[in-house]
């Protein structure tokens, strides 16, 4: 189908964009990569009256390795993140995760800001953001503010951003090179939406006990979640097959997925167990490696 009519704007800078958003309110939508928005518009599921194309705002596209963390401009394409040497060496979990998004065409145009503000519960980047303890910087009429990943996702396609705010930057705190990591997902076909996805980061102290672990689950509800029970269980414990299995069990029990045409809730819960298991084993390998 073809989209409904709309008026099109291409602001030169972020102030112009915010001004337009405020002016047109509810009926205006930001267009970045368009890889999620335009399909919805072509199917007429979304019918915004005003489109604010921010692709001209070059200063929203950057990858900065700063002291203590990584700052990525909202307009940075998945492909740029995939190819970034800095990210490959210091944030390899992000490299891998982004390479699992969609296909080459989608990665060429899709942006990190778009993906995160679209908040698809099966989206790889929202799931990863939680595991990385990341946050976003958003800007609106009232100025700029930060939102922690934990407070950002509220439900299906819904974030705690105001309708008149624009996501400007994604910030990821430094990851110690000693941390093990993994991102795995279950899809029917390669590059499909994740039925279940798992992001794991883990580090072990000199005594062989886990001193930091994050397990984030995607595809198991209306938004990505941290498997907090599993994380608590693993802290201060020796990481081995037994503790990994138990943690995977806990994560599976905690998860409350829905059933849909792709997978039943029961199957999803079982897959949480399988993939948390795989994620933890792989992360452990990397710690030791």
């Amino acid at each position, binding site marked *: 189908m073809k989209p409904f009519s709309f008026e099109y704007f291409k602001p030169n800078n972020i102030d112009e964009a915010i001004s337009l958003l405020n002016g047109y309110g509810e009926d205006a939508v930001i267009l970045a990569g368009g890889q999620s928005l335009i399909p919805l518009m072509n199917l007429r*599921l979304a019918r915004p009256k005003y489109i604010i194309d921010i692709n001209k705002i070059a200063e929203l596209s950057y990858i900065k390795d700063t002291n203590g963390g990584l700052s990525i401009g909202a307009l940075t394409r998945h492909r740029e993140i995939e190819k970034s040497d800095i990210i490959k060496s210091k944030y390899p979990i992000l490299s891998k995760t982004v390479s699992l998004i969609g296909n080459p065409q989608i990665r060429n145009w899709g942006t990190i800001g778009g993906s995160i503000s679209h908040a698809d519960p099966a989206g790889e980047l929202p799931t990863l953001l939680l595991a990385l303890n990341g946050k976003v910087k958003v800007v609106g009429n009232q100025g700029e503010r930060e939102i922690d990943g934990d407070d950002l996702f509220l*439900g*299906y*396609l819904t974030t705690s951003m105001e309708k008149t705010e624009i996501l400007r930057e994604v910030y990821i705190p430094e990851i110690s090179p000693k941390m093990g990591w993994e991102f795995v997902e279950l899809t029917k076909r390669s590059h499909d*939406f994740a039925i279940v996805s798992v992001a794991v980061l883990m580090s072990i102290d000199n005594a062989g006990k886990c001193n930091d672990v994050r397990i984030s689950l995607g595809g198991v509800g209306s938004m990505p979640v941290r498997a907090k029970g599993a994380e608590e269980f693993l802290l201060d414990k020796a990481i081995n097959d037994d503790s990994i299995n138990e943690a995977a069990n806990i994560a599976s029990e905690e998860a409350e997925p*829905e*059933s*849909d045409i792709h997978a039943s809730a029961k199957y999803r819960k079982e897959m949480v167990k399988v993939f948390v298991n795989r994620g933890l084993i792989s992360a452990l390998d990397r710690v030791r490696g």
Partner: protein
Amino acid sequence: MNFDGNFKFNAPREKVWKFFMNPDMLAKCLPGCEKLEAKGENSYEAIVKIGISVVKGEYSGKVELKDIVTPSHYRLVGEGGGLSGFVKGEVTMDLEEESDKTIVKWKSVAQIGGLIAGVGQRMLSGVAKILTNQFFKDMEKELTKEESL
């Protein structure tokens, strides 16, 4: 799609029943309800605007109340649609007393078709749950308001 659940109201059954039979109250609490009109005995027409983020749509529908057993049981049969899809189904509602509280139990079976069912399939039951929860919470708010008057 099958969808069952229950909700406990802090009010006696007679009161809860009256609320559920009151179209003005339903119109107030039904998420996105723009219009709810009685079209005959136990028959209503409604227009609802539902949206999650950029996905917004307007749906119109007809609903009939059947098998009414005051104050404990009735069945809603309805169908509706919009540009993005259609819905046809029924809900059985049972109101049970628990001392001075009421437990409303519902069982629903629905056929959902069209675009929203195809493309939106993986979010449908989750969204239905969220909207239903919102409806019941709003009904409770209204009940509590009335109690305190």
